């Protein structure tokens, strides 16, 4: 489907996000891809939900482990569900994704960084209240 529209063969330079290169084994291959994606993301989810309640791992490492698991799971979803891969024909999709990730990173890390410093440098709330009286 991706390289044919209205029966006209199109060039092989690009691929739509969400599409996969397909051949005759399209459906079997596609279902297998979605099953692998589902399996990996269920695995990451189950581990993530078990982590907060377990005493098997070093407790201070749990927040970092949860964030790593979430990023890994997002990667699984992007590759197996959205089909944004490192193949050359998906380069435009990856570039757009990279810019999006960059903006998200700047927004979240920048906000948290600035607000943490603001909180640390601000007068404690009780003293602020006293001065206002």
């Amino acid at each position, binding site marked *: 489907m991706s390289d044919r529209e209205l029966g006209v063969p199109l060039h092989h330079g690009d691929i739509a996000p969400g*599409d996969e290169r397909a051949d005759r084994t399209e459906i079997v291959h596609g279902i297998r891809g979605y099953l692998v994606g589902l399996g990996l993301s269920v695995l990451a989810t189950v581990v993530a939900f078990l982590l907060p309640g377990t005493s098997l791992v070093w407790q201070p490492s749990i927040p970092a482990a949860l964030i790593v698991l*979430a990023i890994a799971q997002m990667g699984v979803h992007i590759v197996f569900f959205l089909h944004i891969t490192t193949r050359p024909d998906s380069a435009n999709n990856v570039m*757009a994704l990279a*810019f999006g990730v960059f903006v998200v990173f700047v927004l*979240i890390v920048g*906000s948290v960084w600035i607000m943490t410093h603001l909180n640390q440098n601000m007068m404690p709330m009780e003293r602020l209240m006293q001065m206002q009286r």
Partner: protein
Amino acid sequence: MSIQGTDFAIAGGAVADVPAPVHAERSLASRRIVTAFGFWVFLLTDVVMFSAFFATYVVLENMTADGPRGVDVFNIPVVALETGYLLASSFTCGIASLGARARNNLMYYGGMVATFVLGAAFVLQEFSDFSGLVAQGAGPSRSAFLSGYFALVGCHGLHVTMGLLFLLTMIAQVFAKGYRPDILRRVLCFALFWHTLDIIWVGIFTVVYLLGVVR
């Protein structure tokens, strides 16, 4: 969609009397690629908007105004159930996209209906979570933390609700008009939308629920 690439290459070659640039043919993409890429860029801007809600939530997380904290009000087994609904719906949505491409009615309609049922179960569960929180006095006006929480998770819930309407529209359009290329482009956009919402939910259950319980 005509074979524009070929036309362009021939015209260019005739006028300048030099071989057309090799990349001229490759530089024209099909409408399926252009449409899906445009929708992908829209989805990325939607993700940027969500990241602003995430940043707001993380900044406000500890400002509970002596009200309940996350660990007091979050019900992790219910969140796990909601996550299961969304993960399963991402899989059935994938089956539906395969069915649309293969023009297989059973896979397409079956996948879409299963996706709708799972998505609706998610929305209903989330709605009952929210009304439970409001009933126990932990509504969005209780503290800055709860305002941020309802804004972020509620925004995702609204997106899923819109996605369900999108889904019903796509079932109706394929039913009425068949697997036409323009309809298939919309089905592709719906699948992109649905999978992206699932990625945002991964961020929510990690940052809001699991990290909120660990701290």
